[in-house]
């Protein structure tokens, strides 16, 4: 019964993604062949809904999010003719985003460390109200930030974008086994934190 539900869900998701990909391909082709800015605008808005939440999980810095998103979309504009059609357009866009995001994570980490140092002094005198739910979220968030950037991205793509290991391997340009290993280590780390905090 459970397997049947899973199969139905899977078919629906697959059909939905296929429809999305057909639209993406048409838009990307118009960008590549005609340098159509209208098509680019459509792609820009379509991927805003997918990439911005992804970027928001990497950093809370709005300026950095906008900069990263625009850099990804600028690469899409410039490299549209390089898309060979072997993978889904979304995988191709995410593969561009993957490389840009690796840099973003490093940049965000530097900003976060600087902010943390600044806040340490002001927080020292403030009373601390313990909130178990937020504490767990914070702990998981911190654990995410401590992961290696390429481990973190793989986890983000699997957990929040719902991509398959095969798709992530295309995006990251690494064999599936490498992705499985990265995912394994990342999940292990998160489980450790979750296990430690679960008692609260």
């Amino acid at each position, binding site marked *: 019964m*459970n*397997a049947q539900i*899973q*199969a139905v*869900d*899977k078919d629906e*998701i697959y059909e939905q993604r296929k429809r999305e990909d057909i639209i993406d391909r048409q838009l990307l082709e118009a960008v590549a062949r005609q*340098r159509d*800015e209208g098509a*680019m*605008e459509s792609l*820009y*808005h379509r991927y*805003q809904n997918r990439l*911005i*939440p992804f970027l*928001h*999980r990497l950093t809370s810095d*709005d300026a950095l*999010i*906008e900069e990263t*998103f*625009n850099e990804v*979309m*600028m690469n899409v*504009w410039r490299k549209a003719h390089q898309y060979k059609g072997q993978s889904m357009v979304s995988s191709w866009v995410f593969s561009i985003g993957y490389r840009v995001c690796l840099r973003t994570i490093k940049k965000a980490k530097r900003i976060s460390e600087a902010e943390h140092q600044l806040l340490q002094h002001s927080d020292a005198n403030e009373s601390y109200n313990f909130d178990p739910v937020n504490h*767990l*979220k914070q702990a*998981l*968030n911190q654990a*995410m930030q401590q992961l290696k950037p390429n481990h973190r991205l793989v986890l983000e793509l*699997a*957990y*929040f974008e*719902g*991509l*398959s*290991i*095969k*798709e992530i391997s295309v995006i990251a340009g690494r064999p599936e086994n490498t992705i*499985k290993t990265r*995912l*394994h280590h990342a*999940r292990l780390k*998160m*489980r450790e934190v*979750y296990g430690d905090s679960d008692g609260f």
Partner: protein
Amino acid sequence: MDFEASIPDYINHHLSESELALFEAQLLKDPSLQAQVELERRLRHQMREPNLPQTRPNFDTFSKALNPRPWWTHNFAWSAAMAIAFVAVLGLAYFPIQSDNAEFRTLSSGQAIQAPVIRIVLHDFSELDKLAATYDLEVISLYPTAQAVDVTPDNLSDEERARLMQDHRIRLLKFLEPGTF
């Protein structure tokens, strides 16, 4: 099949039918795998952020960068503007703008009249009308501050010409060559 590594694909509905059947079968008999799947689901649920207001980058701003003008076109435009300005300044230096406005006309201002012209300086400028009527002179230019006037004689006879040269109302008289003043 590596069941542990397949958990993300199972939760994300990416297993093929045969893989799914295998996984489900294992899941039924393996409490450890069940616990891992459950833990994975709870973990994802915990990490999911509520819908927060998110940054919305603006396409209009972005679109300006889609087809930027190459740097040399900026320089070219700047250089062209500078060259035009330079030529204009140089041109004005050699060929100043000439005005027909009498307010700015001076005795040294050149005029383009191809007719005999007499420049007369009067003792009393108010006598000009009478003088012009006497000799049938047509006034071309007035220089009130200098009490002077340029006139062109209309068929001035030699006799009239001689009288004009000795007219007591005139302080100074000079015949100017046509086109030279």
